């Protein structure tokens, strides 16, 4: 087994050098890590599992990668090797991302982006890498299904002053403030997405489309008390029946409060805020716009 292991590692290195990621991964996965003949120490096993998972991920093969990440999850808690632990976290986050568990992936990316040390073992963690992790976290959150949970995570990012320097910040701000996103903004956001984040879903919408439609629908529910599906479809840029279907799904999953009158083809949004509290909100808006008028007047010297 010893000789086989050495040959496999050597071959895997060669495949890796030729960027044949999956072949390298398969070569390494042939090593029997649970062999009863030789006792392999845990950190060696962990390093191999993480290595194989990373190679599979280079080819966007989340399924095989997850197999080895799961094996690594039993070993990582006892590991003292911070480099390995970090690599494991990155694998785990990327797999969640590929499996479209965007909110979980976002939290993992965010945890990685908050690493304080700049040197782990002989690896240097540069700001660029942390910024990438933070951007990945924000991207995943924006792609996550709209609702209260996502709003909470968005609030975290919005208050994290590192985010204000990211290229993605303008869209983060609009999403957090629940403003409707226009087509140009969505297209510019789409430019930096990974392949699997633009993949087509069974209902012939991309992941991004669904996320944006749901977000805009939720934003509309804050703006209007009710709206016809005709209008809503026009606002969201989709067919009215499609709008009704997405709205009903969000209401059913309790991610949006409202009721649908199918006879009239109308949706009535509910706001669980008490009327008296809404009144105070409206007063805040009034005072602020009065303040703006006064500021404009003082700027004009009136």
């Amino acid at each position: 087994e010893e000789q086989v292991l050495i040959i496999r590692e050597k071959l895997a290195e060669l495949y890796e050098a030729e960027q044949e990621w999956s072949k390298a991964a398969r070569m390494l996965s042939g090593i029997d890590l649970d062999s009863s003949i030789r006792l392999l120490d845990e950190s060696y096993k962990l390093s191999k599992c993480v290595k194989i998972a990373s190679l599979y991920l280079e080819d966007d093969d989340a399924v095989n990668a997850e197999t080895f990440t799961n094996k690594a999850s039993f070993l990582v808690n006892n590991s003292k090797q911070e480099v390995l632990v970090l690599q494991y976290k990155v694998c785990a986050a990327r797999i969640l991302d590929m499996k479209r568990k965007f909110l979980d992936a976002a939290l993992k990316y965010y945890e990685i982006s908050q690493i304080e040390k700049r040197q782990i073992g002989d690896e240097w963690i540069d700001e660029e890498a942390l910024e990438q992790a933070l951007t990945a976290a924000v991207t995943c959150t924006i792609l996550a299904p709209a609702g209260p949970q996502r709003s909470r995570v968005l609030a975290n990012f919005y208050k994290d002053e590192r985010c204000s320097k990211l290229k993605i910040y303008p869209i983060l701000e609009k999403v957090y403030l629940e403003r409707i996103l226009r087509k140009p903004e969505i297209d510019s956001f789409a430019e930096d997405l990974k392949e699997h984040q633009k993949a087509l879903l069974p209902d012939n919408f991309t992941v991004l489309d669904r996320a944006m439609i749901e977000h805009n629908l939720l934003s509309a529910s804050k703006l209007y008390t009710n709206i016809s599906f005709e209008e809503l479809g026009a606002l969201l840029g989709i067919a009215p029946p499609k709008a009704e279907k997405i709205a009903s799904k969000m209401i059913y999953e309790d991610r949006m409060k409202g009721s649908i009158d199918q006879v009239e083809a109308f949706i009535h949004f509910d706001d669980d805020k008490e009327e008296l509290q809404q009144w105070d909100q409206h007063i805040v808006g009034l005072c602020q716009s009065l303040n703006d008028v006064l500021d404009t007047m003082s700027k004009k010297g009136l």
Partner: protein
Amino acid sequence: SLLRQVSSLLRRLPAIESGKFQDDFLMEYNDTLLITYLAM
């Protein structure tokens, strides 16, 4: 632009106008009067 700002400000009045608000407001009004009565 200033006049536009002023007109959008005026268009926001009244701050809220709904039957439910009236009910809640009067409910709160009566609750407070009741507490005052009890205190008396």
